[in-house]
């Protein structure tokens, strides 16, 4: 048999382990989810920043190209015009400023490639501007004759170069953008991988936890089953033991009683007869001798009586000689004789040939109940009712004594009654309250007897 401690130790540890594991699982899932969210947010910001830079640069390049083109057209218009407009000069100066600021303010976080392109454009524009400045210095006549031709010959190639560089710049910008997109994509797939792993980890550990919990539950169930089986077995053993005890007690009592009655009792009885004859034969002997014999005879008589009472107590021979009802009536009279309790015995429908164990059970029950009534509760009257009907026997012993609380005082006598009744699959009820007398009632089914 195992003590609760032996069961409790490992179980408690396992319970702790399971609890901690569940907590770990929850923390893992929360951390994984939070980090995934943070990463996504960061990625989003990065992507937005990259797009903004891309848009800024695109705008800068477009603006630059447009300004240069406009500048060139304005310059050509001014140079080729027969009546040069001062507005053109002002516009050129304004465009000049815009171009300078565009080149100067080109986002400085660009890659070297782009910056080189910007510097090249700047150089080319300076060259172009130098040419224009030179042409502007020409006299009107010269300008009208040569300007357009000079522009086409010298400025246009430079402008074309500028266009080529600006195209490169655009390409570089696109590349940066694509690189940023690529980085974002990689980060996203990294997050995806992380999330997948977290999920796998959570699912895996969750599965393990579920399995461990199931094992734990199964083990607990098994332990409970084992314990229940043990309990049932030990209860069965206890019942069997007490049944055997009652049986052994009864057998032993009967044996001793028979021994006392058959051997000791009969020998003493025969001795009594002999003493009687001796006493008669000594009628003419001295008085002293006769007194001695009479004394011996009275001693033998006392012995006979005590042996007989002892034998009767152990096994009432009435049960064997006269049957159950007569034995109960005898017990009732015996109680009436020896105590202040007047006993009335009524029997109805009691089968003649009840098995001995029923006789003994009913007899002992009545004996015990009457004994309680007479000795402990000071009853003036007691009534014994034995009724046989409908395949069962009901034994009822009630008295008008002091009574008791059956829930609190359960003596050995009552336990013995319960045991005997239970052996025959019967039911014992004790109805009593302090000051209200007591009724002991036993119901014994008879089917089990056959």
């Amino acid at each position, binding site marked *: 048999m195992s003590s609760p401690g032996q069961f409790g130790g490992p179980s408690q540890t396992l319970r702790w382990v399971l609890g901690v594991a569940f907590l770990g699982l929850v923390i893992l899932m929360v951390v994984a989810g939070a980090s995934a969210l943070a990463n996504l947010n960061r990625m989003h910001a990065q992507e937005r920043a990259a797009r903004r830079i891309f848009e800024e640069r695109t705008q800068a390049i477009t603006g630059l190209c447009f300004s240069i083109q406009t500048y060139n057209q304005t310059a050509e218009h001014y140079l080729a015009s027969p009546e040069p407009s001062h507005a053109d000069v002002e516009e050129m100066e304004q465009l000049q400023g815009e171009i300078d600021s565009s080149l100067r303010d080109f986002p400085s976080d660009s890659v070297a490639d782009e910056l080189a392109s910007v510097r090249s454009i700047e150089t080319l524009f300076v060259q172009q501007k130098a040419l224009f400045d030179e042409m502007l210095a020409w006299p009107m006549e010269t300008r009208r004759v040569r300007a357009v031709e000079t522009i086409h010959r010298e400025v246009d190639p430079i402008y074309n170069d500028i266009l080529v560089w600006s195209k490169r710049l655009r390409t570089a910008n696109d590349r940066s953008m694509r690189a940023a997109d690529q980085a974002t994509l990689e980060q996203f797939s990294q997050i995806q991988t992380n999330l997948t792993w977290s999920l796998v980890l959570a699912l895996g550990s969750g599965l393990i936890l579920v399995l461990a919990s199931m094992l734990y539950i199964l083990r607990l169930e098994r332990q409970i089953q084992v314990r229940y089986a043990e309990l049932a077995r030990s209860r069965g053993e206890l019942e069997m033991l007490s049944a055997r005890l009652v049986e052994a007690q009864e057998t032993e009592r009967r044996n001793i009683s028979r021994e006392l009655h*058959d051997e000791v009792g*009969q020998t003493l*009885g025969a001795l009594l*007869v002999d003493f009687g*004859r001796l006493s008669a034969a000594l009628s003419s002997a001295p008085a002293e001798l006769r007194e001695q014999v009479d004394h011996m005879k009275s001693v033998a008589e006392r012995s006979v009586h005590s042996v007989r009472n002892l034998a009767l107590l152990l096994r009432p*021979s009435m049960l064997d000689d006269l049957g159950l009802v*007569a034995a109960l009536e*005898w017990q009732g009279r015996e109680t009436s004789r020896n105590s202040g309790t*007047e006993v009335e015995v009524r029997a109805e429908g009691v089968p003649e040939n009840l098995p001995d164990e029923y006789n003994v059970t009913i007899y002992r029950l009545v004996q015990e109940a009457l004994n309680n009534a007479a000795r402990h509760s000071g009853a003036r009257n007691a009534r014994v009712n034995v009724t046989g009907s409908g395949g069962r026997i009901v034994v009822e012993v009630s008295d008008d004594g002091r009574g008791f609380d059956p829930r609190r005082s359960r003596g050995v006598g009552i336990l013995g009654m319960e045991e005997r009744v239970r052996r025959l699959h019967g039911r014992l009820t004790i109805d009593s309250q302090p000051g209200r007398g007591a009724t002991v009632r036993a119901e014994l089914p008879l089917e089990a007897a056959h």
Partner: protein
Amino acid sequence: MRRLRVLLADDHNLIRAGLRLVISQEPDFQVVGEANNGRQAVEMARELKPDVVVMDIGMPDLNGIEACRQVLDDVPDTHVVMLSMHSDEGYVLRALKAGARAYLLKDSAEADLALAIRAAAGGKSFFSPAVAKLLLDDYIRKLERTGAEDSYELLTPREREILQLVAEGKSSKDIANMLSLSVYTVETHRANILQKLNLKSVAELILYAVRKGIIS
């Protein structure tokens, strides 16, 4: 001289030997057989037809009460002296119901046996003094405790007379002859007596008579 033929039935040799010795001291008694259980007693009684069977009440195989009933069924002329250790009325009443008219305690067997055998052989009742005393004590105690009325007071002098004769073992015809009455009248008296005393049988009537000390 015709001697009284006695059959002894007791499962204990020592007791039987003692009883035999007591009987052998009476010159007009003769032990014709000894049985050591009830069944044997019945068989021997059938065969030997003794005047009196001295029967132990508690015997193996067939107890004394049942054996007594069978003996009296088979050999109606015989009489049974019941021998018992018990003075309780449960035994006495059953012995009377079985037909025994003498009831002897083993304690006093040696002193009263001859008296009992002689009474039984003459068709009379005999009870050990201790038995009579116990029955009377029980009766009086019950009357005192329950406060019941002694129904004996209800009987007329004639009924008391007939009660005694019935208890002594006389038949209705004998009583009718003795008292110069018709058998029918005696029967009516008997019925009245049983009703007044709330008794059911002659056995109970005898027990009652012993209790009251009307017979011994």
